[in-house]
């Protein structure tokens, strides 16, 4: 999976929880929560969405690494290279 594919999967998962967000307007280095109105329920649904799309296990302790678009791509790209069990 390329980084571009991962990025578009992240944006699609984000679009599902916050349909009003404009994907092109998201600053990749800024925390999602500072740009989009999302709460812990939305964030959990976002993680579930990523898990379903990419089939990657995401530990709760790693959630802080997924707080930005760049962080998501970084984390998921690393995980995708080492497929989970």
């Amino acid at each position, binding site marked *: 999976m390329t980084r571009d594919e991962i990025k578009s999967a992240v944006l699609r998962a984000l679009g599902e929880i916050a*349909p*009003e967000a404009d994907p092109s307007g998201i600053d990749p280095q800024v925390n999602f929560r500072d740009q989009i109105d999302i709460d812990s*329920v939305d964030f*959990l649904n976002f*993680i579930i969405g990523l898990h379903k799309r990419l089939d990657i*296990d995401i*530990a709760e*302790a790693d959630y802080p690494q997924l707080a930005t678009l760049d962080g998501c791509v970084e984390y998921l790209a690393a995980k995708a290279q080492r497929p989970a069990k």
Partner: protein
Amino acid sequence: MSIFVMPKLGADMSEGKLIAWRRSVGDAVTRGEIIADVETDKADIEVEVFTSGVIEKLLVHPGEMVPIGTPMAIIHEEGKPLEAVVMKESPPPEQPAQPSPVVTAPVQTTRAVERLRISPAAKNLAKEIGIDPASVTGTGPGGRITREDIERAAKAKAPAAETITDRQADKQSRMRQAIAAAMARSKREIPHYYLSTSIDMSHAMTWLAEENLRRPVEDRLLYGVLLIKAVALALREAPELNSLWSDGKVVQQSAIHVGVAISLRGGGLIAPALHNTDQQSLDQLMKNFLDLVRRARAGTLRGSEVSDPTITVTSLGEMGVETVFGIIYPPQTAIVGFGKVAQRPWVVEGQVVARPVMQASLSADHRVTDGHKGGLFLATVDRLLQKPESL
């Protein structure tokens, strides 16, 4: 025979608009089944029927706005003889739900309410963008209206974008008015008292982290669910707080239906009930909570969920709020607020240590309870949160 009336879906509701009937004349319905979609100032609600039987007549047509208590359908209960039904034209708004039929004038003849053949996806889309499905020609199998038909109709409707914005703006302003009415009434009528306490959340957070480590992502719990359950169990020990104020007197409720405040995208909030909260496991509560949030935001809450809460829980910690000073939602008599969980200095056995600490607050109706009872309740919530495994 019984009359299905426009229900009162919340303290602030005086009238509702029938969006659609889910059942037609001649259909059998069972208690608890969704019979109609109703639009209120705050949300679109799926309304359940509270008797079982066969629909004899539909008295209100989709699109009609009627006051609460207005007879909407006649249901013939099985095993009971048919009666000649006569009823009032349209009761004044001040006269709420009259379940027994009042006989004065002959019944109006009902226009046949035709059921639209429309896919659920198309129906949702139509509702979302404000297209009346009845005005759309279906091109699907058997003339069924599809998503594409709705999209085409939306495009054909020239200044569609403007209409949608107007509709949303209108919904927004009605939502604000509904909240304003309920909150103004609360502040006018309810003598609030406010209590707050600091709760050490280290046991709860540690237990939760360990629990979630073992769980696949779909089954993980949010700490908010522990708070909701702790409130529900604490109410068993302080049932006076689980009361409604009705017609100048307090009515203690036997069932514990915790309402959870959910903020809606684009503004406003709604606080539907998690039914029998104290009897649900954390897993069930989590599942039902996620479902409730999803449906609150999609506009598919059920009537009982919006009219049943016996107390409200509001959690604003995620916004960085330290302490919530809640306003009671009438006819409820208490609201519990939770602030953020943050590392704070905490004294344990004479030593200052860093602990995750949260402010829990209670706003309660002084006509119903006193600070002593409220204090005991908050202490119980604290005690329960120290044993998260027992929740």
